[in-house]
C-alpha cells in the first residue's frame, strides 16, 4: 500500500429564519486529514488541518418565478497553498416564463446517472483540491435556456469564461509526483485560449421506467489533454508541469431503467479533439452498471445497496485511470433519525492489476452538526 489517507469532516449549518423570502444559510466545517505513511516528497506532510465556509443567500420574488442565488466558498488549509482557495459557486438569476426557464450568471449543472464516474457531466470544472473523488465543482459562468415539455426537456448553454482545474500544491497531498504548477500559465493549444465561448445542448426525457439523456458539447475540454514540463530538477527530471487544454466536440448519452429492484445504468461519450497534438483523434469512454437496493434487509428499517460499474476507455491508461476498471460499492443506510450511512467501495484495474478502496461514513449529531469520515487506500 503506497498511500493511505484518512479524512474527517465536521460541519455545522447556520440557519436564519427567512425574512420576506430572502434567506441566508450555509455551513462552516473543520477537517483533519491524516496519512499513515510518510510522503514521497519531503515537502509534503502527514497531517493537514483545514477549515471551510460556504455562506448562501437566496431571494425570490413573483411567487418564486424569479430568484437570485449566491453561494460563496472559501477554504483555508494548513499546508497546501493551492487548497487555500475561494470560489463563487453560484451567483445567478433564474427567471421562469411559462414553460421556459432562463439562468444567467455563475452556476452549476449536473448531468448523468452513474455513481462512480461522471462521464457525460462536463459543464463545470472539477475542484480537484477539495477531494480526489472529483465530486466538487467550480462555479461556471453561463447563460442557460431550458424548457420542459411533454416530449422532454431541452437545455441550451452558452458558456463564456473557462475555469481551469485546481490541483494540489507543492505541499499538498495526495498529488502526482511532479507538481502541477497552477500559478504558471496553462497552455491552450488553440488561438482563442481561455476566452473561447463554449456551447452545449442537452435533451432528456423519461418514458415509464426509462430515463435517458443525449448531450453535445463544443468547447474546451475540462480535462487537460496533456501536461508539459516547465521546470526541471538538477537530475533532469521535470520539476513542475502545466496542463494543456484542448478544444473538443463531445457527444454523450446516458440512461437508466428499472427492472424490479434493479437499476441499470449507462453513460458513454465520444470525444473528438479539434486542436493540438491530438487534433482529429477520437476517444470513446463508457460506464455501464447496476444498482440494487435491498429494502429492509435486516428485517427492520435499514437498506443495503450494491453498486457495480464497469469503466471502459479506448485511450491508453495514461489518459484516464478508468480504462478497463471495475468499481464495486456497498451502501448501508440505517434510515435512523441521525441518517447514518456507510459506503464501502473498491476499484480494480484489469490491466495494471492495481486496486483502490474507500470507506465513507456520515452521521448527523443533533440538528445542526454532521460528522463525516473517509478512508482511502491505493496500491
Amino acid at each position, binding site marked *: 500500500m503506497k498511500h493511505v489517507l484518512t479524512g474527517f469532516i465536521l460541519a455545522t449549518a447556520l440557519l436564519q429564519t427567512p425574512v420576506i423570502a430572502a434567506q441566508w444559510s450555509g455551513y462552516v466545517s473543520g477537517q483533519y486529514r491524516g496519512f499513515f505513511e510518510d510522503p514521497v516528497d519531503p515537502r509534503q506532510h502527514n497531517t493537514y488541518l483545514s477549515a471551510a465556509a460556504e455562506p448562501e443567500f437566496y431571494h425570490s420574488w413573483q411567487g418564486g418565478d424569479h430568484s437570485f442565488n449566491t453561494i460563496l466558498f472559501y477554504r483555508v488549509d494548513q499546508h497546501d497553498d493551492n487548497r487555500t482557495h475561494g470560489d463563487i459557486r453560484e451567483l445567478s438569476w433564474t427567471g421562469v416564463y411559462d414553460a421556459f426557464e432562463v439562468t444567467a450568471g455563475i452556476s*452549476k449543472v*449536473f448531468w448523468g446517472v452513474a455513481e462512480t464516474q461522471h462521464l457525460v457531466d462536463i459543464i463545470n470544472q472539477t475542484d480537484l483540491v477539495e477531494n480526489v473523488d472529483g465530486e466538487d465543482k467550480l462555479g461556471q459562468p453561463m447563460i442557460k435556456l431550458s424548457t420542459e415539455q411533454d416530449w422532454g426537456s431541452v437545455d441550451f448553454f452558452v458558456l463564456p469564461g473557462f475555469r481551469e482545474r485546481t490541483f494540489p500544491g507543492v505541499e499538498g497531498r495526495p498529488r502526482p509526483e511532479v507538481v502541477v504548477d497552477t500559478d504558471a500559465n496553462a497552455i491552450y493549444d488553440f488561438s482563442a485560449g481561455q476566452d473561447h465561448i463554449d456551447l452545449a445542448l442537452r435533451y432528456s426525457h*423519461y418514458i415509464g421506467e426509462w430515463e435517458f439523456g443525449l448531450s453535445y458539447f463544443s468547447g474546451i475540454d475540462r480535462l487537460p489533454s496533456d501536461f508539459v514540463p516547465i521546470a526541471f530538477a538538477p537530475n533532469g527530471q521535470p520539476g513542475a508541469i502545466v496542463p494543456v487544454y484542448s478544444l473538443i466536440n463531445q457527444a454523450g448519452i446516458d440512461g437508466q431503467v428499472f427492472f424490479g*429492484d434493479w*437499476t441499470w445504468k449507462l453513460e458513454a461519450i465520444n470525444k473528438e479533439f479539434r486542436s493540438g497534438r491530438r487534433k482529429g483523434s477520437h476517444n470513446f469512454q463508457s460506464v455501464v452498471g447496476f444498482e440494487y437496493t435491498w429494502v429492509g434487509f435486516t428485517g427492520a428499517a435499514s437498506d443495503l445497496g450494491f453498486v457495480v460499474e464497469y469503466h471502459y476507455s479506448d485511450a491508453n491508461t495514461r489518459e484516464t485511470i478508468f480504462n478497463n476498471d471495475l468499481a464495486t460499492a456497498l451502501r448501508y443506510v440505517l*434510515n435512523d433519525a*441521525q*441518517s447514518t450511512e456507510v459506503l464501502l467501495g473498491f476499484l480494480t484495474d484489469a490491466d495494471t492489476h492495481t486496486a483502490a478502496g474507500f470507506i465513507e461514513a456520515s452521521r448527523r449529531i443533533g440538528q445542526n452538526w454532521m460528522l463525516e469520515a473517509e478512508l482511502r487506500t491505493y496500491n
Partner: protein
Amino acid sequence: MNRNIIQTSAAAIALCLLSFSISAETAEEKGLAIAIEADKRDEGFADSTANMTMELRNKQGDTSIRYIRIRTLEVIGDGDKSMSIFDKPADVKGTAFLTFSHAIKPDEQWLYLPALKRVKRINSKNKSGPFMGSEFAYEDIASQELEKYSYKYLRDETLNGIDSFVIERYPAYEHSGYTRTVAWINKAEYRPEKIVFYDRKNSLLKTLTYDGYQQYLDKYWRAGQMNMENHQTGKSTTLAWKDYQFKTGLDDKDFNKNSLKRAR
C-alpha cells in the same frame, strides 16, 4: 281496489327486494361503498400547500425534528402529484422529492440533491421503506387512491365518542409492506380517525391516529396532527400540519424536474 292491491303488493315486493338487496350487500361491497364515499368527499381540492413538522421519537424519548413543505396537485383518475421540500435538519435543507403517485403501478419519483444539483430518479417500487427515518413508510404518506386497496366492512364502533365504521383494507400493490390495515372512518364526515397496520407476517406493526381536524373551503377535512406509533420498535413519529392552503393555482408546470431544481 284490485289495482290498489296489486300496487300495494308490488310495492311490498319491491320493498322486500330492496331490503333483500341491502342485506345481500356483502361486507366487501359495504367496505368499498364507504371508501368511495370518503374518496368523493375529498374530490375537487385542485391543489394544496402545507407546512409540516415531523418529530421522531425513539424508545428513550430522544427527539429529532424535520421541517418539510408539501405541495400537492390533484390528478383526476390517477394518483396525485406532490413535491416535498426539506428545510430542516440543516444538512438536508433544499433536498426535495417529486412524486407522481399511481394506484397500482409504481410511483414515478425523483430526488433533488442540492449539493450536487443532481436530480436522481428513484426506484420507488418498494414503498415500504421508512420516509426520512420516520415511522411513516413511503406508502403511508403517498396519496390514498381508491384502487390501492380492496375493502371489507367489519363493524360499527364508537371511537373516543365518534361513531365510526371499521373497515379492513388489503393492499392491491404487490410490494406493500402490509398484509392489511384496519381503518376507523368517521361516519359523519368519512375521514379516517385511526388506522392500524399489520406487517407482512400479519403481526400488529403500527397505529396511526388523527387529531385536530379542520375543515377547509367548507369541504375538505385535514388533520392537524398525525401520530404513528410503532409497536414493534417502541418508536413513534408525529406529523404536525400548519398553514394549509387550497386552490392556490398550482399546475403541471409546478411539478416537473425543472421546478424540482428550483424548489426552495
